[in-house]
């Protein structure tokens, strides 16, 4: 979906650009955004509310740095889950409080039989594996096989800068 399809106008895009790196930590942060882009703070707040309701903003709040907080183990658990079970088991995996992202993605047989990806963060590999075991119990026989891919190195991390200015 492009910015235009999401019904974002030029002011919305300016608000996105002004806030995607974080709010200023001052008593009236939305007014500050308004000053920067030349609209009223109340308009900034109303537009952010609309974007939140539309799902363009996932949430507003503290965005933790997992690694800095000691969650240094990161395991991508991948599951060959019965396609017929995805609709009812997928949401249950996604709702586990230690699963940060949960998606279905295409299989690439024979090298890659897995269709469900659930990212698990923990303070240690042992903790991640214990959590993966909980997912395994939840999925039961609907999962034919699974694996856990631990990350060993970040090769690049630029952050996703949103290209909202185009439209």
């Amino acid at each position, binding site marked *: 979906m492009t910015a235009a399809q999401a019904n974002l106008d030029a002011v919305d895009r300016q608000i996105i650009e002004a806030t995607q790196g974080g709010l200023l930590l001052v008593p009236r942060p939305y007014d500050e955004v308004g000053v920067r882009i030349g609209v009223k703070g109340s308009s900034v707040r109303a537009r952010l509310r609309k974007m939140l309701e539309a799902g363009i903003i996932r949430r507003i709040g503290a965005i933790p740095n997992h690694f800095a907080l000691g969650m240094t183990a990161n395991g991508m658990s991948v599951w060959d889950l019965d396609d017929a079970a995805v609709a009812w088991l997928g949401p249950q995996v996604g709702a586990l409080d230690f699963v940060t992202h949960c998606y279905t993605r295409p299989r690439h047989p024979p*090298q890659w039989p897995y269709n469900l990806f659930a990212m698990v963060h923990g303070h240690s590999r042992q903790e991640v594996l214990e959590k993966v075991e909980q997912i395994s119990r939840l999925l039961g026989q609907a999962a034919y096989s699974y694996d856990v*891919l631990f990350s060993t190195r970040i090769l690049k991390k630029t952050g996703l800068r949103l*290209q909202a200015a185009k439209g």
Partner: protein
Amino acid sequence: MTTLDTVDRHIINNLQEGFSLGERPFRDAAVQLGLSENDLITRLSRLVSSGLLSRFGPLFNAERLGGAVTLCAMQVPRDRFETIAQQVNAHREVAHNYEREHAFNMWFVVATEHQEEIEGVIAAIQSETGLTVFNFPKQQEFFLHLKVAV
């Protein structure tokens, strides 16, 4: 590592979503947390500047905003790993790249402005490296539990 005291933990555990869109949002949040507005702002500033929080503010949904994103993986021979990492990372459309312990040992995110550009980036990486790039576009997303307890 900077240490967190119980108030910091209380803040992080309770302020990862639902931040007020009122005129004085930190005051609103501070009331909920049992802190003063000034104390909350001071602590958040410290948590951000020490890197324990990446930032404080809205988290946008990249796909809803325009642009396309996909996850790709390759099976890279050990002796060519560093060279290929450089070739992959040289593409500005490659946003993240992780080494993982598996036959599929390189996993990267490709982000482009338009969906049709994704294929071009994948084709370029395949021709530069001579390796197959496996494309794993997201199909369904289940509730993202982006909160983390500390």
